[in-house]
């Protein structure tokens, strides 16, 4: 399978990438690691006429301690996240989950920013940044703006990024983590999650987010509210499907997904230390 024809532009700076996006508008797509986009292009489900390759913007590949948060460049690869001692200490949920994206070959090439911006509800890391309350930094023609993770996902494969904006940094709040858990249910090692749950308990509150339980990655707000008002893991998990819209597909019926969500939320809360 070979993608439809396109023009290839390699950006040598963030400004050059934004200029290319501004010039080509809807016709252009950004290419980072390519591990979400190229498979879609090979299936001709995506047929951009211009690809703007930002994969060489090495100045967007970093994991830095920025005081109250960890700043991660959007071009940081899954493998970098997986082996980061800084993340292992201050954001273990993220480094652990990054180590479960795809397989080693995918993690060597795929990037955090690419995965987040692709906005696939079946991806692991969008749920993780939702649970952790991360902030995303977008850079466009008029400079940068911050977007809360909870406001970032707007629809199936759609995000709050404007067509001329590039996701440049992800800010993970440094949390006094009491417990965390990442539950991913799939049938074969490298598959997408049929359902996944990311949980982090820190600073007196609990963040829970769901993978593949709707058209976007979702915060499990009803579960979080229940935990906040003192519910046990078992009682809180009964709320796992509130606000979800699980789909049926070749892997699972929506009823099965809802069952999985309840079970995985309970396991996730328990593993993160909630009685």
């Amino acid at each position, binding site marked *: *399978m*070979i*993608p*439809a*024809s*396109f*023009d*290839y532009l*390699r950006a040598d700076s963030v400004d050059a990438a934004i200029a290319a996006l501004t010039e080509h508008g809807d016709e252009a797509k950004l*290419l980072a690691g*390519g*591990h979400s986009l*190229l*498979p879609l*292009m*090979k299936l001709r489900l995506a047929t951009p006429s211009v*690809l703007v*390759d930002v*994969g060489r913007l090495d100045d967007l590949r970093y994991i830095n301690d920025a005081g109250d948060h960890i700043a991660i460049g959007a071009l940081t690869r899954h*493998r970098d996240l997986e082996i980061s001692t800084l993340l292992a200490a201050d954001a273990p949920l993220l480094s652990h989950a990054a180590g479960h994206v*795809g*397989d*080693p*070959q*995918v993690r*060597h*090439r795929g990037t955090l920013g690419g995965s987040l911006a692709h906005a696939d509800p079946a991806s692991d890391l969008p749920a993780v940044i939702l649970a952790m309350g991360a902030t995303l930094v977008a850079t466009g023609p008029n400079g940068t703006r911050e977007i809360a993770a909870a406001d970032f996902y707007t629809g199936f494969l759609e995000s709050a990024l404007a067509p001329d904006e590039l996701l440049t940094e992800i800010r993970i709040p440094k949390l006094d983590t009491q417990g965390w858990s990442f539950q991913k249910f799939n049938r074969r*090692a*490298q598959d997408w999650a049929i359902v996944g749950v990311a949980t982090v308990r820190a600073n007196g509150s609990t963040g829970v987010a769901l993978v593949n339980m709707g058209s976007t990655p979702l915060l499990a707000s009803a579960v979080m509210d229940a935990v906040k008002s003192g519910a046990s893991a078992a009682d809180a998990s009964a709320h796992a499907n509130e606000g979800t819209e699980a789909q049926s597909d070749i892997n699972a019926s929506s009823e099965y997904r809802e069952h999985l969500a309840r079970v995985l939320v309970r396991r996730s809360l328990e593993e993160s230390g909630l009685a």
Partner: protein
Amino acid sequence: MQITVTVNGVERSGDVEPRTLLVHFLRDELGLTGTNIGCDTSSCGACTIHVDGQSAKSCTMLAAQADGLTVTTIEGLADGDTLHPMQRCFQENHGLQCGYCTPGMVMAAVSLLDENPNPSETEVRIGLEGNLCRCTGYHNIVKSVLACAAESTGASK
């Protein structure tokens, strides 16, 4: 577009369409047919090569993305007639049946040991999760990788 890729230690140039996949550049332009195309959907790992020293699936990269980078294919592992230790361990432990997945398995295994020179059996199995063998030959593949690790901790390129 014109690209130059260092393949198995030699600078190779070519004129490719932007949509040319790296695996097609390697196989069709450079004649390096050791890298197999299996599923063509970045699932099976038969097309695994090394890009700047790390395993990658060459069906899920554009040749353009490899411009200026260093690529190693299965043909680049052996030193003349002397097999790479991983190749020899696959041979000695019967780590293949039909052989179709083998180039990708070997490349993934070499990358695995680069990152984890002394893996447990479980770590080898998880580390090869990106490579499928349809002969269900995983047992001897894992045995081959463990033998290579034991023989020379850090046995790699």
